[in-house]
C-alpha cells in the first residue's frame, strides 16, 4: 500500500511541477490562473499523502535520489505545447479518477482519497471542457495517441481495461512506472537546486 501511495503522491507532485511551467505563458490569461490553481491542488495532495507516509513531507518530496521517485513516466514529460499538455491533463485525470475511486474503498486511506477526489472533480471538469474544445484538432488527437501508452502506466494493470473503456481507446503496452524518462533528471535537478544549496536540515 505504501508503494502505491508513494507513486500517487509523486505523480501529483511532479504533475504539479509540470503544470507550473505554464505560468505566465498560457494561451489565455484565464488558463494561466487555472493552471496555477490546479498545480496548487496537486502539490497540496502530494503533501497530504507524504504526511501519511512520513513526519517530514519536504524531506520525502525533495531529498530522495532520482531513482527513488515512483512517479509514472506520463507526468515526467516536458510538454510545453498546449495540445499535448491538455492531452496529458485529460488522460491523467481520467486515470487518476479510477485510481482514487478505488482507494476510497480502503479503510485506512479512504477518507484522504475522498478529500482529494472532491478537488479533482474540478480538474476533471476543466480537462473535459478542453477536450471538448480540442477534440477535432489534429494536434490534440495526435497527442492523445502519443501519450496513451504512458497514461496506462498511471494505473494498476487490473484498472487498465476500465481506463481504456473510459477514454474509448484500445489497450496497448503500457509505459510502466519504475524507470524514468530523460525529462525527469533535469526537472529533479531544478526542483531541488535551491534546497541542495544549503546543508540538509536548513530552514527555507
Amino acid at each position, binding site marked *: 500500500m505504501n508503494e502505491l501511495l508513494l507513486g500517487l503522491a509523486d505523480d501529483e507532485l511532479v504533475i504539479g511541477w509540470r503544470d507550473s511551467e505554464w*505560468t*505566465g*505563458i*498560457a494561451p489565455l490569461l484565464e488558463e494561466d*490562473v487555472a493552471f496555477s*490553481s490546479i498545480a496548487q491542488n496537486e502539490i497540496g495532495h502530494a503533501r497530504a499523502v507524504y504526511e501519511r507516509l512520513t513526519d517530514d513531507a519536504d524531506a520525502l518530496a525533495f531529498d530522495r535520489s532520482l531513482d527513488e521517485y515512483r512517479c509514472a513516466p506520463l507526468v515526467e514529460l516536458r510538454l510545453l505545447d498546449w495540445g499535448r499538455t491538455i492531452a496529458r491533463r485529460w488522460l491523467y485525470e481520467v486515470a487518476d479518477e479510477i485510481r482514487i475511486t478505488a482507494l476510497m474503498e480502503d479503510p485506512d486511506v479512504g477518507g484522504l482519497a475522498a478529500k482529494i477526489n472532491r478537488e479533482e472533480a474540478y480538474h476533471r471538469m476543466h480537462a473535459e471542457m478542453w477536450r471538448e474544445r480540442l477534440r477535432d*484538432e489534429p494536434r490534440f488527437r495526435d497527442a492523445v495517441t502519443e501519450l496513451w501508452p504512458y497514461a496506462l502506466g498511471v494505473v494498476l494493470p487490473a484498472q487498465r481495461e476500465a481506463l481504456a473503456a473510459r477514454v474509448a481507446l484500445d489497450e496497448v503496452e503500457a509505459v510502466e512506472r519504475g524507470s524514468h524518462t530523460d525529462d525527469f533528471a533535469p526537472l529533479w535537478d531544478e526542483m531541488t537546486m535551491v534546497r541542495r544549496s544549503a546543508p540538509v536540515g536548513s530552514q527555507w
Partner: protein
Amino acid sequence: MAAVEIPQDEQAFLAYVQAGGQVETADWMPDDYRAKLVKFIEMHGNSELMGVLPEREWILRAPTLQRKLALTAKVQDEVGHAQLIYRVVEDLGKPRERCLADLVDGKAKFHNVFHYPTKTWGDVGVIAWLVDAAAIISQKALLKCSYAPYARIMKKICWEESFHILHGRDVILAMVTGTPAQFELVQEALNRWWGPLMQFHGNPIPKEEDPMYLWRIKSQGNEEARQQFLEGYVPQIWELGLTVPDTKLRRREDGTWEYGEPDWDELMHVVTGHGPKTDERLAFRRRFLDQEQWVRDAVLAA
C-alpha cells in the same frame, strides 16, 4: 442614489476630479483624460503580467512544498490582477488582445523592476517583500483614483498584495536567520535590487507637474511615495541585520529620508525597453503567444 452631474467641458471636468469627483465608464470624459487613463492602466496591467516572469522559473525551484504553494499562489494572483486590469482598459476602448500584442511588440511599457534578472532565491524574497511593498504604496494611492472602476478593483488588488509582502518577509526571515551563506544570498539580492527600488516611484517631479496627478489618476507624488517606502521598510531592513547599499541614506530629524541620487538615466533606459532582461522576456512571451495562437483560434471558432 441621485446621478452625479459630470461636467462636459474639460476645465470643469478637471476641477471636478481635483475636488475628489469620480467618473464611471459611460460618463463623458475629455479625450486627454481617457488617453492618460489607458496609458497608465495598461502599463499597470503589463507590469502585473511581466512581473510573473522574474518569478516563474523559481516556482520550479522553490525549496519546500509550502514555499512552492505560496509562490504559485502569489503569481496566480498577479495574473488575475492583469486580467482585471486589462478589463478596465478594454472598457476604455482598448481590447486585451491589442494590449498583449503591443506589449510583445515593445510598443507598451512596464515597470522598471521587471526588466531585471532574478539570480537567486534571495532575489525571490526581495521581490516578494520589497518590490511588492513599493508596488503596494503606489497602488494604495490609486484607491482614490478619479476613474471609479479602476479604484474599485484596486481594493482587491491591494488586499492580495499585502499577503505577498508577508510571504516575502517570511522567505527573507528564514534566510537571514539561516546559514551565513543564506544570509549572504539576501544581502547580495538587496544590493542588486536597491537601485531599481529607489527608481521605482519615478523621478521627484513636483506632483502639480505630473499629469497623472493633475487628473487625479493617482493621488500622491513620486517623492511622497518613495519617502513612504523608506519610512516603512528601511528600519525593518536594518532590524534584520542587513545593510542598505547607500552610504548617504539617513533619516533627518523632521522624518524626511535623505538618500544618494538614484540613477535616473538607468530608469529611463530600462523603461524604454533596454533593461538587461527586456528582450529575452518579451521574446519568451511572444514565442508562446505565436505558438499557441491556434488554441485561441479554436476557442473563438467554437
